[in-house]
């Protein structure tokens, strides 16, 4: 059953060295879960029993194991293949947030209808057609779902547009946009994912955009790494907002005002290990006068995941990973933990709220920090 997956993920190269399990943030806290044993069991043709097990849904798809694997086994894709198999056999993971986010993604995949973009702040300039498109992803929805956490994802989208405006760019914000399908892809829902991908590519084609800018690393990773596998070559450039802004800072079109603060930076799995964008967000933070960046012990390709992904499974294990990361961030002496992934922001804020940390570290989104610094800066 898993022959194809084993072949494609190079699982047959597994040396059984156990580096994956030793690296896995989940295995550290849950000894029942071991990537090495899962690969081994698949190789020994023990698939059927494995599909019904909870461990299939425990993987964070953070990619730490694959980054360290001497045989370059793609454990993420292996997990995805197992999840597809599990879904086909009638097993599902436990949806977080009562399944509301999955339901939204399925709704976007199945129904027609245009999004409402009235959330775009009045002072911002956006257009319906143009060369640069800002892919907002699910940020407007998260604003409703996570309002109680105090995470303002609509504000994140607006600050991104504000920064683009400051660079002299009036981005397209399309009403025909759909969720990128990241979470459906990684939880094994191929059909809905493909529907979303097709709708998004059609939308971009119709907008006339040559460059698509993402504020969410998950959307960026899907478009640049996963979509081409299903639809072939993509005819537009893609970049993360940090890459977009860095080029404008370097050319002198964008600069920031003084902002005294000590911050630390969380490398998102998708932006870091998946796409290798480590320096741009740091360069941006470094370009704000007065802003001091204090690094955590585990950064870049060694960075610890924010503890949850694809809105599936949020247990004691996930919370422990998040708290571990928060205490690592607090130990740097920084007052703010900057993330460049909305989901890292949500997950870590949720853990911080649960922990009830008085005087704990503040969690901010990269574009929010930069947009605040913009107020004192010179705009071109």
């Amino acid at each position, binding site marked *: 059953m898993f022959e194809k997956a084993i072949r494609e993920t190079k699982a047959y190269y597994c040396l059984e060295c156990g580096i994956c399990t030793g690296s896995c943030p989940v295995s550290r806290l849950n000894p029942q879960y071991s990537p090495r044993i899962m690969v081994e069991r698949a190789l020994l043709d023990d698939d059927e029993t494995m599909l019904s097990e909870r461990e299939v849904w425990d993987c964070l798809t953070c990619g730490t194991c694959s980054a360290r694997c001497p045989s370059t086994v793609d454990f993420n894709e292996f997990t995805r293949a197992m999840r597809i198999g599990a879904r086909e056999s009638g097993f599902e993971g436990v*949806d977080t947030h009562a399944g509301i986010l999955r339901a939204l993604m399925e709704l976007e995949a199945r129904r027609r209808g245009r999004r409402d973009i009235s959330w775009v702040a009045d002072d911002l300039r956006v257009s319906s057609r143009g060369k640069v498109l800002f892919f907002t992803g699910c940020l407007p929805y998260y604003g409703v779902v996570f309002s109680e956490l105090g995470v303002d994802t609509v504000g994140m989208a607006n600050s991104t547009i504000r920064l683009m405006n400051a660079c002299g760019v009036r981005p397209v914000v399309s009403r025909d946009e759909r969720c990128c399908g990241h979470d459906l892809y990684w939880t094994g829902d191929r059909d809905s994912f493909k529907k979303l991908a097709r709708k998004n590519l059609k939308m971009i084609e119709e907008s006339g955009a040559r460059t698509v800018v993402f504020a969410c690393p998950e959307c960026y990773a899907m478009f640049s790494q996963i979509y081409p596998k299903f639809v072939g070559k993509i005819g537009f450039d893609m970049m993360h907002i940090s890459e977009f802004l860095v080029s404008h800072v370097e050319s002198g079109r964008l600069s920031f005002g003084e902002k005294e603060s000590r911050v630390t930076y969380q490398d998102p799995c998708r932006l870091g290990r998946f796409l290798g964008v480590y320096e741009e967000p740091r360069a941006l933070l470094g370009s704000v006068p007065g802003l001091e960046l204090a690094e955590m012990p585990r950064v870049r390709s060694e960075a610890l995941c924010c503890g949850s992904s694809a809105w599936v499974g949020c247990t004691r294990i996930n919370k422990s990973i998040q708290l571990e990361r928060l205490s690592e961030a607090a130990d740097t002496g920084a007052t703010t933990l900057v993330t460049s992934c909305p989901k890292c922001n949500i997950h870590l804020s949720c853990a911080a709220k649960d922990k009830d940390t008085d005087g704990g570290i503040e969690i901010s989104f990269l574009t929010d920090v930069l947009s605040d610094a913009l107020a004192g800066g010179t705009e071109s």
Partner: protein
Amino acid sequence: MAAARGNPRILAFVCSWHPMAAADNAGADGRSYGTATAIVPVDCAGVVSAAAILRAFSSDVDGVLIAACGSGDCHYSNGNESCERVVQETRDLMGLAGLAPQRLRLDLSSDVDGGRFVALLDEFAVELAGLNGRAGRERPAPSRSAGKKPAKASKAKATARKKPAKAKRAATKKTATGKRTSRKKSVAAGKKPAKASKAKAAARKKPAARAKRKR
């Protein structure tokens, strides 16, 4: 009577306390409402999640009605209040997704009058038919009498109609008895009563019936 334009598909989550009594009374009185309305009894309106409502819309339902007990009358003290919060959140999400928030209606009432319940469904059907989108594309279908056979229907027609009704009743009964059916299943069962295997078999055996149903 159902809506003048089309027959909107309505999924009604009905709290098993006051509102379900109203629905039962409507049946006992022999009142009729739109044939495309599916009633899903729930223990309390407070258990209806935003995900369940959104999934209903994914399944091409035109409108979702939640019938909850009136203010201060919730059997579980505050289920109706939490339902109000869920409805507000879901409406916000629907608005962002480009779905008219009017497609989700919450009725808070402890009135057990069957007439009021049917009027509520009819009024909602009219409102849905007036909205752009799927509701306007429905084929007209005759209204079904609650608990009664259509008097002048031919035998074949009666079979074709009766079976789906039975299938739907079975599906709703299952939920009513407290068996833990997943919301998704309830939605599916409520939405496509005509797909029950028995009804299908009946339609296959009698081509005349199938032709009539298609119309």
